[in-house]
């Protein structure tokens, strides 16, 4: 995003008559209380949680504002809004919890925000099928609490859980902290309902698996609001685990901790949580438990008592074989206590004018060492970068996600935005050259759009564009994002 100034173009100025017409129709669909064009509402739906936009916000820049904010209460209303938007050729920005860190909900070209938060009912918890069906605007924490009170869990616990929504998870292909055992959201969704830009409502059958040709509804996974609005979904759920074992180890290096994780997975053991911190991040977060330049690894195994005990033993053995020393439960408890806290660091960075972001990428095992080294080297080489630590936090039989935290203060003659987009460019370039994928769970949004073509290849990119056109011929859906 070199042309970042386009984000601050302000809302589209419709001719007054058109504006009045749209307003009248929206009020008819929703009624006054679920519609707004008040300044305070327009501002509230202008930003999301994109770190660079926080800096702009603090400077008092008012970003692109939508023209209208709507809070539909059912799928039919969403359908009516989309029909109207198509007819009037007005952009539509679906909105969940507003925690997108990639500019995914910035109303770049104004238009109508559809906030799904009032569509937040749990429709069914099915004990036999082990599924939960809920409306897309349900808050993650509320959903999880309701499930827990009935003895279940979705085990999709992203850091954004207190604020993000079911629909947002699906639209961005989110990952939770327990994904190593239970999978990312794309592995958890069994069916969904969505409204297409022409107002048509599609519903997929809830099924454990099928062989009925390509599954169109799966296109909504990671679609970032560009092909329609997700209004309902069915997720897998699990009975709450009988037992949890908390383990942690310190390794001589990040390379060795990664090697231990690879061997654990290779044995068919899937801890719910594996988090391995590189030497820099270990020093920042787990200094009290480690010596100089060590790499800390934490593990949570959970499930039936008979199994967790065995898994714990196997993990201990494998880690010890890699030369690790046991650090007990404390580091894991520390992580559990702090795992939703994003504000402590941010409240320290911002007053110091530190420009920061997190970059999550993924690769297969053979590429991980190069990916890590190259990204770290490239980011660190930028003048002004003070921090480029990483951890690995979502693991697969075939690879893992690397999550970098980058922070720095731009040199005097470098603009904040140039500094920010420069470290992103270097990070993305290094990732692509190392064979990594440019996003593991934050999505593309506005921020990574520029690298998507290189990520998926030119032909596939063209095809994706065509698919988007089939859904959204009027180009009203979340314009400027993803593709």
């Amino acid at each position, binding site marked *: 995003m070199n042309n970042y100034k386009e984000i601050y173009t302000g809302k589209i100025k419709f001719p007054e008559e058109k504006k009045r017409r749209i307003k009248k129709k929206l009020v008819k669909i929703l009624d006054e209380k679920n519609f707004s064009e008040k300044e305070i509402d327009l501002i509230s739906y202008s930003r999301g949680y994109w770190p660079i936009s926080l800096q702009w916000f603090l400077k008092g820049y008012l970003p692109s504002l939508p023209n209208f904010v709507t809070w539909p209460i059912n799928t039919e209303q969403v359908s009516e809004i989309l029909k109207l938007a198509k007819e009037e050729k007005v952009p539509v920005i679906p909105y969940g*919890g507003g*925690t997108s860190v990639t500019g995914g909900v910035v109303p770049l070209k104004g238009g109508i925000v559809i906030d799904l938060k009032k569509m937040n009912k749990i429709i069914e918890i099915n004990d036999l099928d082990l599924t939960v069906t809920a409306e897309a605007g349900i808050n993650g924490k509320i959903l999880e609490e309701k499930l827990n009170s009935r003895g279940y869990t979705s085990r999709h616990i992203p850091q*954004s859980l207190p604020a993000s929504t079911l629909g947002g998870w699906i639209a961005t292909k989110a990952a939770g902290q327990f994904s190593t055992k239970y999978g990312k959201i794309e592995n958890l969704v069994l069916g969904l309902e969505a409204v297409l830009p022409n107002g048509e409502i599609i519903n997929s059958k809830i099924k454990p698996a099928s062989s009925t040709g390509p599954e169109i509804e799966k296109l909504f996974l990671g679609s970032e609001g560009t092909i329609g609005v997700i209004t309902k979904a069915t997720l897998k759920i699990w009975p709450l685990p009988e037992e949890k074992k908390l383990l942690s180890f310190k390794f001589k290096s990040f390379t060795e901790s990664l090697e231990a994780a690879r061997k654990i997975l290779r044995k068919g053991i899937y801890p719910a949580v594996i988090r391995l911190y590189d030497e820099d991040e270990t020093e920042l977060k787990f200094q009290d438990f480690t010596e100089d330049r060590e790499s800390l690894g934490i593990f949570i195994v959970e499930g039936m008592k008979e199994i967790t005990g065995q898994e714990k033993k196997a993990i201990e053995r494998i880690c010890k074989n890699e030369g690790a020393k046991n650090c007990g439960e404390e580091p894991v408890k520390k992580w559990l206590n702090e795992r939703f806290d994003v504000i402590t660091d941010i409240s320290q960075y911002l007053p110091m004018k530190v420009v920061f972001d997190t970059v999550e990428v993924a690769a297969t095992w053979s590429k991980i060492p190069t990916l890590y080294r190259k990204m770290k080297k490239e980011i660190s080489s930028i003048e002004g970068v003070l921090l480029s630590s990483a951890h690995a936090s979502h693991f697969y039989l075939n690879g893992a996600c690397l999550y970098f935290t980058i922070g720095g203060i731009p040199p005097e003659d470098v603009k904040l935005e140039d500094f920010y987009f420069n470290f992103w460019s270097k990070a993305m370039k290094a990732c692509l050259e190392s064979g990594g994928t440019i996003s593991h769970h934050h999505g593309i949004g506005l921020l990574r759009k520029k690298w998507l073509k290189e990520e998926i290849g030119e032909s596939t990119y063209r095809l994706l564009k065509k698919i988007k056109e089939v859904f959204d011929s009027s180009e009203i859906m979340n314009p400027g994002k993803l593709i």
Partner: protein
Amino acid sequence: MWRGKYRNILICSVCPNICGANCPVFLAKNTETVSPSGKARVAYLYLKKKILDVTNSVNLFYLCTECSACQIICPLNISLGEELRKIKEELGENNLVPFYLKQVKEITEKMNLFGMEYSEKYAGEKEGKPEVLLYIGCSASRFRGKTVEAVINFLRKTKTGFMTSPVHEKCCGLPLLQAGFKKEFIEIGKVNAEEINNLEVKEIITLCPSCTYTFKEIYPKYGLKIKKRIKHITSFLIELVNKGKIKIGKYREKERVVYHDPCILARQLNIVNEPRFLLRKTGVKILSPPHKGKETFCCGSGGLLRFSNPKIAEEIAKKRLKDLLSTKPEVIVSACPTCEETLQKQLNQIEWKVRVQVRDIMEHIHETVTIGN
């Protein structure tokens, strides 16, 4: 601003709403704007004079129950309600408090949030040589006659020397502060402090957690000092039990009771176990609702929400009542007259017959008390 008094507003404005799912107003209204971070964002831009729509911004700042549900989950221990109060004080100084809260200012003349008659209603009660000032509070005198009678009976029964305010009882002043009338709050605070300090009582007991909190914690922040021990009625009861002065009998053994923790009592005064201890002594079965202890959920009447936005206050009350009724209780017990009034009012609105009573802990206990061991 990072070093000034609005630092915490600034922090909340760049937080992704970690506390959002705790905030009763957000859960009732489900819009980004009323979320804690949403309010802080508008507040920040308002303070930076970047917002044109001042009226709606100001209205937004009052959409808060000041329940501090945000604080208990905040890694930085920030209560947005307390932070917004700083803006409200400036609004008060500049005569910008919304018109619908102007009635709050009348406390300075009428002495009670609900009118002069209530400031006199229980004044002048006295028993023996008064060691205790029974401070009834605006809500109890207006809405909870049964509670007040129970307390007075209890004090008489236990031969506690007590008195109520001799002529008029003056509001503790918290609503003034919540509306932004800082000057008036300090004025009433001074009068209260002087009058109370001149009494020969040793301690004050209040029925309302907010009054205890205001006298004990807020007054000193504004240079006001009450030189008496200040206690909520539950702490007073516990002391009597612990000293062996009273005994609570198991006279209510068959009752299914759900206890609603008042926000200020649980979060600010840290009184969570005491009411349950007392209830247990009466032999009841204590039920466990969603949101209890410090994680309680506001009844909707916290802050001045019932004046600034009665509809949202009612939504919150409905939600809280639903939580409590989900335990299938026979009795809802609380220890705050405002919560009790709010829940009772909501209960009365349920169309289908629910045979559930709302009681203050004093109403629940006083009949079961005997003197000595």
